[in-house]
């Protein structure tokens, strides 16, 4: 099945460049372009893409607000890949907390871009560059809420740590020596116990509660 992609970015050259790269790939189809957040929401509702490449800074409505709106209001929202020029943009973190599923730098190679779109469409893994780790720690609340983490079993905590490190299910399975189905069950239980929507949110919770720190060190 072809993956349908909507591109939302206020710069014409970025839109046309992404469209050309994605359009040349079999299995990917660019169904529309939006130049601002309002158009992004409208087109997402109308065209029902699988993936939205969402620029963070746009006029009328930012990528963050558009993401939050789509995730909240649509019964089956598209997977949202946040795209940004600068790595340290604090908007990126906000977009992730609003429900985006991954993020990508505009300076990524064409191969990385295609890889990212496919991954996010599959929903199987995360993109968590080091910069986001740093942002997560900067935004960690002063009084971290460890209640969710405390509910996790020892095995579940291990799985969460590996998720935070950016490993896919298959890789986690290999690391801890169980089958991939087992890992899927653990992940589902983690999402339930932490009361989060998806893997991205689970990892954010891990950082914000102080469960995981930037150096990959552990605090219990």
């Amino acid at each position, binding site marked *: 099945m072809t993956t349908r992609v909507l591109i939302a970015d206020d*710069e014409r*050259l*970025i839109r*046309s*460049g*992404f469209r*050309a*790269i994605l359009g*040349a790939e079999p299995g990917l189809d660019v169904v529309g372009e939006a130049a601002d957040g309002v158009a992004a929401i409208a087109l997402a509702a109308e065209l029902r893409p699988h993936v939205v490449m969402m620029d963070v800074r746009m006029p009328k409505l930012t990528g963050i607000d558009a993401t939050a709106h789509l995730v909240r209001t649509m019964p089956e929202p598209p997977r949202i890949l946040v795209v940004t*020029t*600068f790595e340290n943009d604090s908007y990126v973190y906000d977009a992730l907390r609003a429900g985006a599923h991954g993020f990508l730098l*505009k*300076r990524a*190679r*064409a191969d990385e*871009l295609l890889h990212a779109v496919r991954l996010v469409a599959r929903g199987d893994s995360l993109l968590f560059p080091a910069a986001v780790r740093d942002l997560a720690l900067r935004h960690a609340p002063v009084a971290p809420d460890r209640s969710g983490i405390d509910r996790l079993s020892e095995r579940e905590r291990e799985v969460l740590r590996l998720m935070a490190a950016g490993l896919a299910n298959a890789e986690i399975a290999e690391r801890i020596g169980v089958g991939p189905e087992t890992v899927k069950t653990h992940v589902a239980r983690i999402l339930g116990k932490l009361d989060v929507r998806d893997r991205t949110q689970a990892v954010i919770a891990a950082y914000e509660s102080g469960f995981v720190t930037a150096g990959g060190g552990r605090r219990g």
Partner: protein
Amino acid sequence: MTDPHGIRRLVDRRAGLRWTHLLLGAALLMPFQVLASTVVGTTGMADGHTALVAQLMALALALPLAALAGLLPITRSLEGPMARTFCGADGEILTSSAATWPARRRASAWFSLHTLLGGATGAVSLAAPPAGVLLIVLPGLGHREPGLPWLHPIATHVWAAPVLGTALLVLPVPVSYTAGRILARLAPALLGPTPADRLAAARQRADRMAERARIARELHDSVGHALSAVGVQAAAAARLLRTDPEFAATALAAIEETARDAVAELDHVLGLLRDEGDRTAPPTLADLPALLDRTRAAGAEVDYAEDGFEPAVLPGTLSREAYRIVQEGLGNALRHAGDAPVRLCLTVREDTLEITLANPLPPRRRTRAGGGSGLTGMRERVALLRGSLVAGPDDGGQWRLTARLPLGSTA
């Protein structure tokens, strides 16, 4: 090195400069004194008094007049440079016109003090030595004493006269020394910036910096976005070069235009940022006291000594380069040595200015024995001035910088 406890300081070059400064003060007093004398004479205020008393009455009138004149803003732009050149004071002295009333009042106080102490020193310098000589030869004059009124009491103890005479002969020296010290002490307080001035200047600087930072950030943003777009278009063009050459051609055209515009913007903004930076004149060794103050304020202990060093008579290029050397040296010491004391010494000997800077090396030695790019640039410029620069660790565990700059080498 200047020996702070020796008798040499009474007659060294700094003392000489301060004496000159005091005489200039006396000269500045003259117009007011003459005016006041005329008034005293015309109104007959001093009738029945001696000439000396008349002069003192005139002085009592002249000083308030001088104080009034000192309130003019231009006073500081005259007195400031003089004080900087001659007083050998520690601290910042402003040479701009005094704009605020507090600054004008302080400049007026300085002017009054300068003229008063200058007048006194000048009077003593002119009157005491001749009187001293006269007293010294008095015993030899016998009956041919001049009929000066003030000689009469001394005539009875004529053999004490030479002693008194010698004292009078050298009297200008301690008088000038003391007056000079007073002025040097007060110069930064009366002619320098107040804490309020410093605050205002700092705020202005902060505003300027903030504005430049804003301009720089915007540039960073705009160029970053332009390069991003160029990157994406180039990637797309590369992938579609054979399958869709039309697109590739359009993409390349877009890349060209974007790149050109971005460089033009860089050009424009860099020009803006550059203009802001070049407005101040490069500092010379006359600005050394302020540099030492700032370094000490930054937490470093600086032992400063000088010998035969007068910033005023050094050629401009040499002075500016010497300042840079000291600045670089102190900066390095601050960075590497932390709070170990730094010894800085500026000596003028045999027509050469010698700068030595020494600080103990930190326990963890850095392997840059030759120094970084700052030192390389310095070496080149010192070579152009036909001087020498040696920097590196010595066998006493210290890091030592020695620069020698010949005085006669610059235009």
